[in-house]
């Protein structure tokens, strides 16, 4: 154990790859050391400047497999993450991933909110400075936030465009991508941003897959309900999704399909009955609250639809037509007027509600600011896409593929290849 610690002291400044190899080989020794020895080594190696990050990482990740005191572990890992050195961390991303997973598990058992700030930091440390790299720590952060009911804290991570993955740097796997979008969708649901939630869930269900994953099935259930809330016309699995999913959906998600069909009838009564029939299934999936919101959304849609047919309608008529029997219609309509979901004026004298057009003329500074923001975002998106496009166009694999397809699939590796390759490269360079 002494030797391990010494190696860390000596090699951390000098040769990280050598140190990593030695640490890999010394894992047996670390496993067999006594708890006291391990704790002592950890204390010796912890520095606020993070000089011995790599060594500490190996010690802590071995600790994950052993018995340990949760409180001490949480404190140690929190301290470790805040002092960690990015360069050293990136030498052993798999170990860091294991450590963070264990940390998330323990924190979620004790007090999930503890993990939020450290995991946020971990993302920046293992990812790249622009923050567009997806890391395994992303879904761990989202999971902690969900269990801590602290949803708002992680919304910035969702809104920040994350579009790149580097397996060598971050040890990210396909499961991580699905979990990120699934948990992200749940967080958007909590913030009532249903359009964003639908987009995220759609990303999960359309992941290319040979075998359907449970994550995709659960995401599909929420996808259906969230789509109904925004009154989208399609709740079907996109055509580019895997075949396995389409088949499984029919057998595993039938209550949700029925619910969607019932919604289309526009009858609040039918929808409520459907909800009652399948309530057990919805509760088991944790989707009952969401299903109730779908009910609310249908009530609102029914009222809003009336505005397209009638100019004025009595309060009782609205209630019957929309299928609402709870008697708080004035309050409900008032609430919809407040949120801009309907444009109406209530006349208490004769109990009539008159609908009119939106008074928005779109000629104010707010509209201008909104337009401005959207244009800026579009320009940013265009620039991002151009960068990605260029990256792909100049990559080796792409050029090879173009060469091969030009040749019509013939595989003659003669001296001509080099010239062709060079000319292709030159062509793509000048095309820029």
């Amino acid at each position, binding site marked *: 154990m002494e030797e391990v610690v010494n190696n860390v002291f000596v090699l951390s400044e000098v040769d990280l790859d050598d140190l990593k190899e030695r640490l890999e080989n010394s894992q047996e020794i670390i496993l067999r050391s006594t708890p006291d020895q391990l704790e002592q080594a950890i204390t010796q190696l912890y520095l606020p400047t993070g000089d011995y990050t790599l060594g500490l990482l190996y010690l802590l990740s071995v600790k994950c497999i052993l018995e340990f005191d949760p409180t001490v572990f949480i*404190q140690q890992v*929190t301290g470790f993450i805040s002092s960690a050195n990015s360069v050293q961390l990136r030498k052993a991303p798999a170990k860091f991933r294991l450590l963070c997973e264990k940390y998330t598990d323990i924190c979620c058992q004790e*007090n999930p*909110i*503890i993990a*939020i*700030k450290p995991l946020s930091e971990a993302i920046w440390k293992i990812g790249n400075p622009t923050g567009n790299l997806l890391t395994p720590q992303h879904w761990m952060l989202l999971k902690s936030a969900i269990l*801590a*009911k*602290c*949803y*708002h*804290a992680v919304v910035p991570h969702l809104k920040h465009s994350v579009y790149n993955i580097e397996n060598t740097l971050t040890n990210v796997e396909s499961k991580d991508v699905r979990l990120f979008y699934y948990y992200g969708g749940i967080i958007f649901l*909590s*913030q*009532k941003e249903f359009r964003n939630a639908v987009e995220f869930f759609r990303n999960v269900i359309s992941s290319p897959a040979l075998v359907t994953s449970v994550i995709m099935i659960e995401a599909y259930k929420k996808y259906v309900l969230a789509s109904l809330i925004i009154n989208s016309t399609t709740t079907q699995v996109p055509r580019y999704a895997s075949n396995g999913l389409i088949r499984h959906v029919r057998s595993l998600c039938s209550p949700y399909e029925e619910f969607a069909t019932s919604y289309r009838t526009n009858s609040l009564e039918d929808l409520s009955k459907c909800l009652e029939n399948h309530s057990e299934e919805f509760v088991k999936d944790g989707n009952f609250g969401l299903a109730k919101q779908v009910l609310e959304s249908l009530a609102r849609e029914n009222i809003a639809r009336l505005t397209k047919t009638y100019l004025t309608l009595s309060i009782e008529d609205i209630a019957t037509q929309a299928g609402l029997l709870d008697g708080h219609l004035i*309050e409900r*309509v*008032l*609430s919809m*007027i*407040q949120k801009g979901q309907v444009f*109406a*004026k*209530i*006349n*208490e*004298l*004769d109990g009539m509600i*008159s609908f009119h057009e939106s008074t928005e003329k779109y*000629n*104010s*500074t707010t509209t*201008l600011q909104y337009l*401005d923001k959207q*244009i*800026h975002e579009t*320009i940013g998106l265009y620039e991002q896409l151009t960068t990605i496009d260029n990256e792909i166009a100049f990559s080796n694999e792409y050029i090879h593929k173009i060469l091969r397809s030009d040749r019509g699939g013939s595989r003659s590796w003669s001296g001509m290849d080099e010239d062709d390759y060079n000319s292709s490269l030159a062509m793509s360079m000048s095309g820029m």
Partner: protein
Amino acid sequence: MENYEAEMQSFIADQKYEALINYCEDLELSAAMGDFQAPYDILLISYLIVGDLNNARFLWKRIPSQTKQQNPQLGALWSIGQALWNENYPLFYASVSAYEWNVMIGTMVSILIEQFRQKTFKLLSRGFSMISTNTISTHLGLSPEDTLQLIAERGWEEHPEIEGMFKPKPIEEILREGSSLADLQSLTNYVVFLHK
């Protein structure tokens, strides 16, 4: 804890409630590992003031039950939140006056009441073509005499034949047309971009 209070006071004085919320949320995350109490009550009332009932509800769910028991003011604040969530106007006005708030919270509760009244008044003028004094009283939490006085001040016409029915006057929104140097900069950027 004292310098946190001073920070929060300055946000309140400047009426920067969004900034106050960000500050308190950050404190809550740090308090998890630290040894100080997160400012739950200030955060809760701030959510109510900016109208973020969603996050107010989640905050209530995650406050530890021990803290809730030790701090009855929190429960009283949440009753206000519940009234707002259910859009129960009479309950709102009842719950804001049902408790002896401490100094800092008391100021914020008064701000909430005033703001809510103004917002509701705007809604009433927008949403009704004919409204009874009863409805106005319930929604604004005012006595009948105060209601009549307010209506008179705002110049709402009374129905010629029926007593107690008023026609709200729509509130004119002032359109501020202003372009600044920043807008010119944006326009220049667009033109450059389109020419690429």
